[in-house]
């Protein structure tokens, strides 16, 4: 069996966005799924190649701390039909010799509202106890990347802006430990 990492429940993800009125941050209230990322090492490319490995986030767990924005965000992301935000890990620099705080690069597919878009990512690696580690990073994306239209009211005079920033801190432990 190929090696794997288990995503721990302390993982965090939030979305920063803005409207033409103010800024808002939507936090995921609970990360419950124990997703597992399976990988193999490609010694030639010095990369980890993931196999069917995704982190699943329940969009209905997002709380923007402003009740109208929270419900509008869920509606915008079509949470009723596509309740999961999925981050499919594709590849990542080999972590074997990575030092504390060092950055590594990787690729993911983000699946949102039935659309999949590929992104190059940069993560900061933070080592923890007992082979545990954290991957931290952020990515600026657009609603339009996923064919989504951010909400506008009053004929568009009051509106959410296209850009959102996804910040994450994923906690991992080796599978079986």
């Amino acid at each position, binding site marked *: 069996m190929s090696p794997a990492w288990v995503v721990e429940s302390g993982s965090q993800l939030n979305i920063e966005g803005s409207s033409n*009125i103010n800024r808002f941050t939507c936090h995921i209230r609970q990360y419950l799924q124990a997703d597992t990322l399976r990988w193999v090492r490609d010694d030639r490319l010095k990369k980890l190649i993931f196999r069917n490995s995704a982190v699943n986030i329940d969009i209905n767990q997002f709380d923007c701390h402003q009740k109208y*924005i929270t419900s509008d965000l869920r509606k915008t992301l079509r949470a009723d039909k596509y309740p999961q935000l999925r981050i499919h890990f594709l590849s990542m620099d080999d972590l074997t010799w990575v030092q504390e705080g060092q950055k590594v690069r990787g690729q993911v597919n983000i699946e949102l509202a039935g659309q999949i878009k590929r992104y190059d990512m940069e993560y900061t690696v933070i080592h923890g106890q007992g082979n545990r580690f954290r991957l931290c990073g952020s990515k600026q994306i657009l609603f339009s990347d996923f064919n989504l239209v951010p909400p506008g*009211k*009053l004929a568009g*005079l009051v*509106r959410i802006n296209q850009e959102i920033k996804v910040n994450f801190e994923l906690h991992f432990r080796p599978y079986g430990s």
Partner: protein
Amino acid sequence: MKKIILSVLVAGAVLLVMSLLLIFVEIKFFPGLVEEYFSPVFRWSDTSTDWLFYTHPFVVSLALKWFWERYKDLFKGGDLLRAFEVALVYGIIAMVPVLWVTYSAIDISLGMVLTWLAYGILQAFVAGYIFSKINP
């Protein structure tokens, strides 16, 4: 007839500009109140209905012009005083009962309803002043 059409169009255009300015003022000074427009009770912006918003000043202007032509002889005094009286009548007769029932039926704050009342009265004042100037 030409004066009537002219005053409807002028008042409609001025009310449109005023409505846009007031929204930007509201965003700047009362952002908490404007956030409420993200409530699900308000429509999402959509090309099939957005035009209704941008034409509403002309509907208001037309309705107030009809009212003005019918009752303008009741309003005495200078342009400002006549405009004030039109605004008062419009606010009491047209706005207060409608907003009363709106507040009772729809989940919106009292603050928002009061801004609509103030906005309606201001619209009637501006339209009344333009009518008094162009078509006394």
